């Protein structure tokens, strides 16, 4: 009898490890930026002539939602954001249009000047927001993806929750689900707004 107990224990421990491992999502790499100040940037907005920098949001709890019109999961996530913003349950959301033109595999940007690319990114982002509705207080344009690198973006959509002091408090990797919004993001917003 004793002979079988030890292998049985080892077996169940192994099963336990594998069961936990199966539930983890390898796509979700914890961001080292949590608890650190949101990296500074200054980029043009979709509203021509304006620029946006995160320091303008100091004193507010806000969300930075990174998206693209060519990103399929962004399209899936978008209605939830639009509905929540309309209800007024969300803090201000800033959209960051990530590599709108050069990220689209169907477009070749090698012959484009930066001005042309910016203009095209602006018109494409604007058209998409007109078509699908905008949950954003403003939309900034990360045309070449440099802001994305500073924020450690590796797959749109990604969303950052930033507090009044400009510290990143939470990062949602992949689309915001109704559960993530209700159970994680909104309670954290409420706490940070105190």
């Amino acid at each position, binding site marked *: 009898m004793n002979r079988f107990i030890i292998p049985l224990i080892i077996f169940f421990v192994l099963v336990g490890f594998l069961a936990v491992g199966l539930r983890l999502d390898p796509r979700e*790499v*914890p961001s080292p930026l949590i608890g650190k100040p949101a990296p500074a940037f200054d980029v043009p907005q979709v509203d021509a002539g304006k620029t946006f920098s995160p320091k303008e949001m100091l004193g507010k709890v806000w969300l930075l939602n990174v998206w693209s019109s060519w990103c399929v999961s962004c399209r899936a996530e978008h209605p939830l954001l639009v509905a929540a913003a309309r209800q007024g349950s969300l803090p201000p959301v800033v959209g960051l249009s990530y*590599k709108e033109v050069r990220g689209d595999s169907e477009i070749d940007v090698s012959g484009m000047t930066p001005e042309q690319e910016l203009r095209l990114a602006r018109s494409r982002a604007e058209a998409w927001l007109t078509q699908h509705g905008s949950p954003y207080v403003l939309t900034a344009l990360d045309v070449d*993806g440099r802001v994305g690198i500073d*924020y450690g973006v*590796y*797959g749109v959509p990604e969303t950052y929750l930033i507090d009044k002091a400009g510290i990143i408090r939470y990062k949602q990797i992949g689309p915001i689900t109704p559960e993530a919004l209700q159970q994680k993001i909104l309670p954290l917003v409420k706490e940070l707004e105190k």
Partner: protein
Amino acid sequence: MKAIATLFVALLLATPVLAKEAAPLAQDPAVEQRMINITSELRCLVCQNESLAASQAELAGDLRNEVRDLIKQGKTDQQIKDYLVARYGDFVLYRPPVKPTTWLLWGGPFLFLIVGVGALIAFLRRRGRQVAEATLTDEEKTRAEALLKADQ
């Protein structure tokens, strides 16, 4: 025959032209070599089983460009790795750093080795005792001696 010779000469002349066309890809071989050395030690976050050097993912291309820029700015290999770790976490390193959260990762194999050697020693001792306990009766001894003699 003359036509073939002409074609051959034409081809010979054309080769250097082709070679020149490939040049802009690796503008600075030293930078390129360092970039490859650094990025082959880093993981691509999009295709997680590929290195940053080998991945065809768009982000990997962007990051290779970023590494090229950092090399040109005179950053050391360690500074470049730190730059990427600050953004994407230790996950990008194929050689994770030794720190409290990775002690089990680094020490795990040795732990298993110690447990294994311990189990082996315990097993051998127990078996040694069992073998020693198996003594022969007088009758068996004489039979064994007879068998051994018969073999000679």
